[in-house]
């Protein structure tokens, strides 16, 4: 999802229509965009569809909206003439950044807003679809300053130098990576390569250093620039051509004439851009199945026309045609989407599917709910604390390894709790007053390390009073197990967070399922908890296993 800024006046001029804020809001929602801000001069527009890079520009939005309003329908018309010029690709770039597609667009009717829009489109495409220039990088240059043919080749980082865009002096490629802002930002994309890619013209003048930066003279566009040379480099031939196609249509919408170039790879030549009409055939009934209703052919034709798509019918088949600045129409499901969006989702009559299924909760949920019900009946209050807790508190109650977060949002939440006790004590830390006695419980998820990452649901019960004892909590444990009809045993234990000689491990048969005891005052002091605490924590997973063994689930 990308957000672009669009000048309202320029937008209205190009659309030939002045819309109110509400009208723009509504219209944008229908082309998978959203108006997220409007200050009277600029609109900020969120473009939701990852593959609709053509919408990352004022002209592209207008082209789509002209269809929506019925001002222009069907496949937009672009003429492409071959320029007779060549870009020659050196084999050595194959391993670094193998593909390039180029075009020239001449006689662009440039102005300040359009220049801003072209630069913004370039940035947004290379950031979103281009995965921060890794997949796609784009350069736009003043075509009049270039002597053809252009060479795309790999060079030694020390050997070639030029003045990068907005810098004052010549720098070697290595220096550019080390010293310029974009060099530092994108330099990692060239990490490990001994040679770097550059575009040079016939005279050896550097045009650009993809995917890092343009040159300061050739690679700088101004309001006076009329003829633009575009290079798109990247890791996939299909994608570089697709992006170039989108860009030239935008420049053509600004009055430019599209000229193609021959890209000479070692083994083959291709001509770019490649503004072909793509046509695909589907069964009409398959499309209707996705939508849930059928429509007549004229209606479909009208709807698709407004989406800038043409269609023809051949008995039970539909032939869909679109210009290849789009790459998101591949299946009958995709065509159904275009029709639904064009028709207007809220005009569709809804249907509740007549499928009979039996609803149910999982055994895990039912068991958790049973335990919660018993605990509430015993007069205790249910807590809901966070799964993420502070590492140091977590460690107080964990005998094994802690599952730590690499990129925590805060110190308070830098590990996954391995016991409910840790998250509850984190909440009680430094806690002021509490009504005594306090009976508290929580059932929740924990994660711990035991030969691998493990997860379990646990039930914690805590009893706070001016005086507490092992038997206070044991009586609750006894009642709980009596209610769920499971027998348990206690064995002496030696947990640091409990008082020695006043604690035990809880077993079902030979399975260890939890602990019970009085909390060590050392821990209470550390966490500034001012009342004695006793409690137990048991594994819900083990209870479920036992019930399964007894065929009780």
């Amino acid at each position, binding site marked *: *999802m990308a957000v672009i800024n669009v000048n309202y006046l320029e937008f209205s001029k190009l659309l030939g229509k002045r819309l109110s804020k509400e009208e723009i809001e509504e219209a944008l929602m*229908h082309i*998978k965009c959203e108006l997220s801000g409007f200050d009277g001069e600029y609109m900020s527009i969120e473009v*939701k569809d990852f593959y*609709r890079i053509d919408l990352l520009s004022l002209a592209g939005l207008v082209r789509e909206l002209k269809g929506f309003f019925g001002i222009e329908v069907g496949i937009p018309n672009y003429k492409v003439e071959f320029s007779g010029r060549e870009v020659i690709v050196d084999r050595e770039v194959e391993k670094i950044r193998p593909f390039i597609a180029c075009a020239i667009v001449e006689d662009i009717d440039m102005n300040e807003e359009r220049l801003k829009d072209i630069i913004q489109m370039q940035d947004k495409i290379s*950031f979103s679809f281009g*995965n921060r220039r890794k*997949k796609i990088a784009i350069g736009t240059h003043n075509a009049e300053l270039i002597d053809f043919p252009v060479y795309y080749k790999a060079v030694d980082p020390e050997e070639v130098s030029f003045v990068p865009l907005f810098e004052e002096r010549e720098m070697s490629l290595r220096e550019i990576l080390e010293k310029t802002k974009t060099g530092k930002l994108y330099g990692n994309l060239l990490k490990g390569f001994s040679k770097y890619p550059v575009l040079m013209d016939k005279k050896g003048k550097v045009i650009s250093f993809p995917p890092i930066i343009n040159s300061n003279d050739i690679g700088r566009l101004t309001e006076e620039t009329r003829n633009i040379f575009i290079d798109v480099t990247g*890791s996939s031939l299909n994608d570089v051509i697709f992006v170039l196609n989108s860009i030239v249509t935008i420049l053509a919408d600004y009055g430019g004439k599209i000229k193609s170039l021959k890209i000479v790879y070692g083994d083959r030549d291709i001509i770019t851009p490649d503004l072909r009409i793509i046509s695909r055939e589907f069964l009409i009934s398959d499309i209707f*199945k*996705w*939508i*849930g*209703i059928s429509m007549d052919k004229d209606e479909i034709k009208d709807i698709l026309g407004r989406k800038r798509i043409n269609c023809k019918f051949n008995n039970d088949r539909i032939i869909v045609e679109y210009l290849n600045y789009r790459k998101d129409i591949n*299946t009958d499901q995709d065509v*159904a989407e275009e029709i*639904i*969006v064009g028709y207007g*989702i*809220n005009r569709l*009559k*809804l*249907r*509740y*599917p007549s*499928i*009979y*299924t*039996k*609803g*149910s*909760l*999982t*055994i*895990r*949920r039912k068991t958790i*709910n049973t335990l919660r019900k018993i*605990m*509430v*009946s015993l007069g205790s*209050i*249910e*807590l*809901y604390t966070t799964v*993420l807790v502070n590492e140091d508190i977590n460690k107080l109650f964990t005998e094994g390894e802690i*599952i*730590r*977060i*690499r*990129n*925590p*949002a*805060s110190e308070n*939440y830098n590990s*996954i709790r391995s016991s409910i006790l840790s998250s509850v004590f984190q*909440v009680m830390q430094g806690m002021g007053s*509490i009504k005594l006695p306090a009976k*508290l419980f929580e059932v929740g*998820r924990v994660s711990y390390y035991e030969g691998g*990452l493990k997860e379990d649901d646990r039930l914690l019960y805590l009893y706070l009073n001016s005086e507490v004892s092992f038997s206070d909590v044991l009586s609750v444990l006894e009642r709980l197990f009596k209610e769920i009809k499971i027998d348990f045993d206690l064995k002496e234990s030696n947990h640091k967070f409990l008082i020695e000689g006043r604690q035990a491990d809880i077993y079902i048969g030979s399975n260890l399922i939890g602990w019970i005891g009085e909390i060590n005052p050392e821990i209470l002091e550390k966490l500034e908890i001012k009342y004695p605490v006793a409690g137990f924590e048991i594994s819900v997973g083990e209870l479920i296993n036992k019930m399964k063994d007894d065929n009780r689930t």
Partner: protein
Amino acid sequence: MITELEYKVLKALTEEWKSLSELSRDLGEEEYKVLRTLGFLNTKGLIDLREEVEKNYVLTDLGEKYLREGLPEKRILDILEREREIEIKDLEEKFDRDEVSFSLGFLKRSGAIDIVGGKVIFKKRVKTYDDILKKVKEKRASEDEIKLLIGRKGILKLVERREYYARINENGKKVLMEFDPEKVIYHYTKDVLDSGVWKKKKFSKYDINMRVPMAEIGRYNKYLEFLDKLREELVSMGFEEMENYRIVVSHFWNLDSLFVPQDHPAGDISLMDTFFLKDFDEIIDFPEDLYKKVKEQHIKFHNFWDDRIAKVPILVSHDTTFSSMQLLKAKVPGKYFIIDKVFRYDTIDAKHFIEFTQLDGIVLGKDLSFIDLLGVLKEIIINVAGAEDVKFYPAFFPFTEPSVEVYAKHKKLGWIEVAGAGIFRKEMLEPFGIDVPVLAWGMGIERLAMIYLGIDDIRELHTKNIRRLQD
């Protein structure tokens, strides 16, 4: 009929006025209890009760100090009597400056001293007001005496005290005479039943307005109770709960199995806001054959795959992960849901937290279509979210086509975005071997819960203050 306490109080009263403080001291009961009982007795017309506001001058801390040590003029006079004369600056070392100047003024006016060129010379002993301090302390000082000290800064202060006085009247005496403790049962014991004494005696009457500490209560967490309610709704609509929940899942399940390109950059479901583990970089929580098929599909359609990325363990960032897992064992037709916790990196404030709950669901069926999706969504959102109406806008998610954003009309808030939904892409379902339409959606629960619970800080959905839960 009078209560036990009323009887005790009545008995302690005489025909002479008795103060509340005295009375409660005699009875060994707290004043507020005795006062309340006096109120009841007064209402019943058994006693006379009057209230007086007493104004009394008492010593301040400074006054108390002077009582102990003597007023400064007295102490200066003591010194002079011994030394006969002294430099003023020497006095100022021993006393406060203001005390010295006031005291010398007083002593000179009363003819006890002379002051010559910075020197104080003793003439004769005069009377100081120390005895009045003592009388104030003992509450014996006359008004004229008090006036003599009021002028001095900070020695006396005026305190007001409300005092109540009560005496028994004729009615009271009559009731008291008729009241026979031998004829009344105070404590309702097993013995009272066994002996049959209740047949002969009357039970004493309680003060029904008495305040007692509230009984403890067991209580579900309000937010979890809300989630229970949602689960109940979904079960009643025929949905089966999914059982794959985990905090830590592989990137494979969280995103790759959903056909999200691995080189997909920042966005709603991106890695930008995902939590990673510090000490683990691989988790194998998927069947190998599915893994292979998903990998092939990515290479075919997205031209990108990295095994290391697929196997990275992350904190589950959306519940659609579990919808994907459910596809491995889902029945056709089938309806499934999950309501559980997901994790996303965010700056923590009143509107954003890093742990939140989503409600995800899928419906599988041979003849399902987009209008069924809309029907299911409308039904769920009206039932579950208590919305009045829904509307839809086209949206984009890498794993669904068509995709919609669902807005619900809420009574208070108007139209709010509540869910994202769509039909799973054929390309995504292929590795699972599923060839029927699968309707899918995911919705955030926090906003609905906050409206339901009347909370405006998202952090309060988790327990922060245990004391508050006890009330």
